[in-house]
């Protein structure tokens, strides 16, 4: 009652900590087109071997690279361009940008006939779906699942470089496609600023989403030269807005509707569901999504205001509108204009003043040592985002705090480099 009357979140700290074992019963709406969502580094991931090899600092540093990639991709489409004019599978220059596949959540889908299961990171911030393919002509990184072998599938086919499908790759990946001189196969390339990349054949194949949902002739990248920090996953599933994305390719089946729920901790599972209808969604608030003039693949959002502890932050309305905003399943930490971040941080710190502080964690500069509260309730100031259309989204405590340990519980927001980013 006290928490309610003071507009605070009351929670038990343990509820923010992952357990050492997986609680895999998927909660939330589970339907015909539903896949289980798993955190890449949690106990539900088979990629983990029971031992977490990646630190929170690693995850946050990778997140920095992803944000740099998003900004560079948008500025590239503004005209600052450095796209690769002639890709081939042998050479691929390292480019400015970064790891598109650093998102932390994946699903398992089946590819080929007979189908082979692959763990793919799902990403609303990119368009091309790709996986590593045998014979890995140049290079493949280590992945948990066996690497897909197209020669053992009866439904695999390459796209030729004279096909109009091939030319779509330019806008989907930011790189013009190449053409195999011997087979005339279409060659895609997607590359990242930390020198991670995937290059290979642009192909079509049967994709098994669930036991009952099969997509024939799905366009994807069959990677022959893959290097980088993809964390044991077999590749990536692109859920952006481009015609080449999974969402657009399956429009007739799923009506361009999908949803997901990311679990509260790394030791539980969520879902990724394709298709809607049937009154599947209740108690939703909707906001129109917009198109960034500089990049049509991203899902643009209109942030109107932010409240902390029920008090609207005193910010100029133009602060959010000038640079625009996007929603991305692959970026871990929300990035705000520095002015907005400073104001939010100040209000949050005020609400948390009773708790001892802790050292910063990578990009997170507001952290608390809550080890003395491990078995007690804590109060945190709630944060709400108001989006266009008066859609007020109340963040859950799991959406406000990043818990590295009980000794280092951090405000899970970070600033961009400049208000104009």
């Amino acid at each position, binding site marked *: 009652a006290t928490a309610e009357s003071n507009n605070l979140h009351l929670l038990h700290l343990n509820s923010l900590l992952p357990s050492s074992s997986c609680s895999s019963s998927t909660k939330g709406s589970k339907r015909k087109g539903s896949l289980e969502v798993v955190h890449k580094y949690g106990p539900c991931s088979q990629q983990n071997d029971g031992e977490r090899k990646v630190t929170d600092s690693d995850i946050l540093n990778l997140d920095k690279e992803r944000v740099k990639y998003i900004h560079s991709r948008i500025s590239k489409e503004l005209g600052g361009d450095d796209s690769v004019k002639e890709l081939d599978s042998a050479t691929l220059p390292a480019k400015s940008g970064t790891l598109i596949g650093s998102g932390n959540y994946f699903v398992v889908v089946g590819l080929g006939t007979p189908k082979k299961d692959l763990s793919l990171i799902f990403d609303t911030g990119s368009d091309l779906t790709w996986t590593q393919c045998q014979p890995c002509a140049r290079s493949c990184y280590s992945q948990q699942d066996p690497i897909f072998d197209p020669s053992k599938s009866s439904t695999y086919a390459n796209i030729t470089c004279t096909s109009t499908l091939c030319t779509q790759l330019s806008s989907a990946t930011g790189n013009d496609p190449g053409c195999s001189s011997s087979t005339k196969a279409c060659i895609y390339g997607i590359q990242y600023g930390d020198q991670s990349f995937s290059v290979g054949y642009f192909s079509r194949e049967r994709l098994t989403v669930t036991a009952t949902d099969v997509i024939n002739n799905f366009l994807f990248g069959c990677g022959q030269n893959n290097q980088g920090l993809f964390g044991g996953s077999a590749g990536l599933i692109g859920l952006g807005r481009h015609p080449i994305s999974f969402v657009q390719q399956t429009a007739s089946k799923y009506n361009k509707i999908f949803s997901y729920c990311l679990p509260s901790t790394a030791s539980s599972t969520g879902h990724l569901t394709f298709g809607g209808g049937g009154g599947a969604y209740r*108690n939703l608030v909707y906001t129109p999504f917009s198109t960034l003039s500089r990049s049509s693949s991203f899902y643009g*959002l209109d*942030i109107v205001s932010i409240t902390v502890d029920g008090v609207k932050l005193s910010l100029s309305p133009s602060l959010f509108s000038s*640079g625009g905003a*996007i*929603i991305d*399943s692959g970026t871990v930490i929300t*990035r705000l204009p520095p002015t907005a971040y400073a104001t939010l941080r100040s209000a949050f710190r005020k609400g948390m003043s009773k708790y001892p502080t802790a050292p910063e964690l990578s990009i997170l500069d507001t952290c608390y040592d809550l080890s003395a509260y491990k078995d007690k309730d804590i109060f945190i100031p709630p944060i709400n985002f108001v989006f266009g259309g008066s859609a007020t989204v109340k963040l*859950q405590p*799991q959406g406000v705090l990043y818990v590295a340990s009980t000794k280092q519980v951090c405000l899970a927001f970070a600033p961009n480099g400049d208000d104009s980013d």
Partner: protein
Amino acid sequence: VTIFGNVQQRTLEVVYDLGSGKIGFGAGGCQ
């Protein structure tokens, strides 16, 4: 560009409806 990241989306049901051009948020999607 402001980016609404995945920590902030935890436990929310996030619905992308491209046909209607809207995104929905619902509390307790997988809590």
